[in-house]
């Protein structure tokens, strides 16, 4: 299964790194030259990375594993008002971006108040489009216990964050976050953010294992590159029109304009519409492509 890495090194002889990645069957996702330095984001199968590192060490560069590089994660706050939003939500989002994730902050419409708290069906569908979610709740155990019931429906990996250090009887809980009056930059706070990351990583690894046991028809990184070529949607530093998911991609273009072209794209000898579910996203009318598994298609089951 593909994993996402970033090469950080000099411009000098960086073309050799690109060629080696291509030779090993990897995919270049992004190149960011900065004067004499370059960052290359790429996808490569895990066993090959050892061989590539021999070359990058010779070139005095380094390869960094970005575990959430092929994920879109939702950071959910009860509301977007100042009562709930600053600062944990932004800190969580910023912290996960360091590990390659694309994060979307979502504020619930009816998220405030213990008794009236609810996540609407549309909000649930929006959150479920993501690969994982982090719910950032408040300071009170009783309140969190009530609000936790609403998140049990989610089938995606999720982490629940809140103020109390420990709450028994709820799944995937990390405490010591809650509402914060300032940035989470003390060593204690950073350790807490690390705990959130590690718990999420543990769950995501299980999901990756599930996917490798029942492989997708085509790897999402390959679908992303093929769609970029076919539809002329190559990204820039400021805009990434095709976002990677663990089991597909999100094409950030209007559904009515492009969904038929996406479905009719021939990738790896298959029509994409035949080997993936292509649906309208609930978020900004974008296109969601979820790859079917090989067993679902009757290939190598």
């Amino acid at each position, binding site marked *: 299964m593909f994993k996402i890495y970033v090469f950080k090194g000099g411009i000098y002889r960086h073309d050799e790194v690109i*060629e080696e990645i*291509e*030779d090993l*069957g990897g995919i270049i996702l992004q190149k960011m030259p900065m004067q004499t330095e370059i960052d290359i984001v790429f996808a490569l199968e895990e066993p090959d990375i050892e*061989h590539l590192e021999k070359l990058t060490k010779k070139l005095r560069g380094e390869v960094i594993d970005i575990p959430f590089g092929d994920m879109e994660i939702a950071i959910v706050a009860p509301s977007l008002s100042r009562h709930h939003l600053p600062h944990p939500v932004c800190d969580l989002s910023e912290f996960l971006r360091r590990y390659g994730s694309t994060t979307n902050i979502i504020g619930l419409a009816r998220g405030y108040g213990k008794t009236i708290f609810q996540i609407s069906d549309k909000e649930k569908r929006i959150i479920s489009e993501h690969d994982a979610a982090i719910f950032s709740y408040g300071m009170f155990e009783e309140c969190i216990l009530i609000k936790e019931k609403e998140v049990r*429906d989610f*089938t995606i990996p999720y982490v629940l964050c809140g103020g109390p250090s420990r709450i028994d009887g709820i*799944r995937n809980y990390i405490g010591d976050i809650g509402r914060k009056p300032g940035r989470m930059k003390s060593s204690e706070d950073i350790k807490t953010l690390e705990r959130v990351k590690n718990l999420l990583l543990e769950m995501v690894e299980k999901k990756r294992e599930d996917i490798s046991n029942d492989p997708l028809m085509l790897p999402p990184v390959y679908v992303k590159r093929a769609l970029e070529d076919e539809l002329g949607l190559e990204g820039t530093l400021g805009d990434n029109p095709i976002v990677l998911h663990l089991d597909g991609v999100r094409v950030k273009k209007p559904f009515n304009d492009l969904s038929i072209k996406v479905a009719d794209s021939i990738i790896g000898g298959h029509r994409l519409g035949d080997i993936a579910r292509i649906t309208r996203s609930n978020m900004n009318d974008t296109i969601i492509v979820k790859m*079917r598994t090989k067993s679902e298609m009757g290939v190598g*089951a």
Partner: protein
Amino acid sequence: MKAYLDYAPMDVDGDRISDVTDSMPTQEMPFVLERKTTKSMLIKNRYEVVTDKGNFIIETTNNKFHDFFKENIEHFKDLKVQWADRNTVNFGYVPTRMEPTRKQYDYDKYSVLLGLSGYDKEMGVLTLSKMGHISRNGIEKSVFGKVTKGRHILDLLGTNDKIKDIREVEVRSEQYEYEVVTDDATIKENDNIITKTVIDVFEQCPFAVEHLLFLIRDGVLAIDKKNITYCRNDKLQGVSLPQESSLERKRGSISVRNAGKGKGSVFIYFRDAIEDKSHSVAGNIINGLELPMNLKPGQRFKIESKTERLNTLGLEQIEAEKITKRIGIGHERIGDTDDNAIIIEQDPEITMDAKKNKKIVTKGIDPNMVFKIRLFEDKAPNSTKYFKTITGLTTRQLGSLDVLVAHEDLDMIMFKGDQKMAGELAPENAPSNGSKKGRIGITNMASRQRGIIGVRFNDSEEYGPTGEDMYHTNCVGEVINFEKLRDIKEGDTIYLTFE
């Protein structure tokens, strides 16, 4: 004793490689012995569950719940879906001996577990978890497996569905060990002696196929670099190729890189790799992938293509006729049509095009107009590479040079080069003891006239074959029959082959 030679069974008298085949492995070109270690291995604990909505696979771990499942598998074969909610699908009922509990546990997505309906021992259920959840399932930590394939079926199952069958999946995997042999080694019963690799080529990438067939024209391929995904040969690195239709690289695929520094390198893949525009897949290995997989960089192996290369450049017209007759395609001679005339042009030149066309046209010239050369590859590697690229001898048996300067009063002849390409041609193998007649010289990057190729008809202590002083000259080889070059005029093209 029974043994195999390149997968072909044979009865052998003796236990040495020499008793099986005449050719012998060497340190440089070893053979590989393939030996089956166990007959087969049964991978257990995998079950295929057949339901009304489709099949799915569960993989189990060994614990007491798995033992119960296995012992009572006949009971489980007739179960119906009793209820299906957002968390689970439950098949019932099976009588159990499990102690009921009211404790709640955390269950992962796709877990397979046993439960009790209504905490009743007689009402055992097989539960499949559709999502991670916490519940009271009636039995303490009763997870014994996971759904690994066909998970989409879980969402389709409803209360009218039932299990039709549960089959143990037998996955038999044969284990082999490989021994690299470099001498007349002893073989055992049923050993497979792999002496060569057999390949087939694809029509989609004709230029890459031509490149590959030229590389393996001697029937040998060397491994220059190797890792777990591929091995590569860099002998033709630097040769430009057009971008052709890119295909998926499978295990055993042979691809040619068509862009970048590594263009012209040939790769053999040991694992699947996705398609890439910079790789043209020329063919795949039918037999004998074990050779490149087990050999080390620096070693070579025999390689044989099912498709013969059809390139008659440098051959006599009569030889070309014999080849075309053998293959069964038409042949037309033009130019000098004598039997002994040397072929300088073939139309179409590419093997795959020629076979598709079912006819080739060959243009011949007088054999006296073809010059035999010898190159000093060890002493002047970069100049040799430059010379081969300019003449076309990198990928053909017959090269050509266009005359730049030739005059009857001049003691030498000069040929056109490529000034841009010669920009990186550093001084090497300078004719320090004077320039000998017949030697081929190239003006190197130290001079403004870099890239020009020349041959001197008489020895000179002062100037090299291109009229430059010795420091500006790289000596790259010699023309064997150079005296005939005196008859060549400006504007002519000469043809070269290796002696």
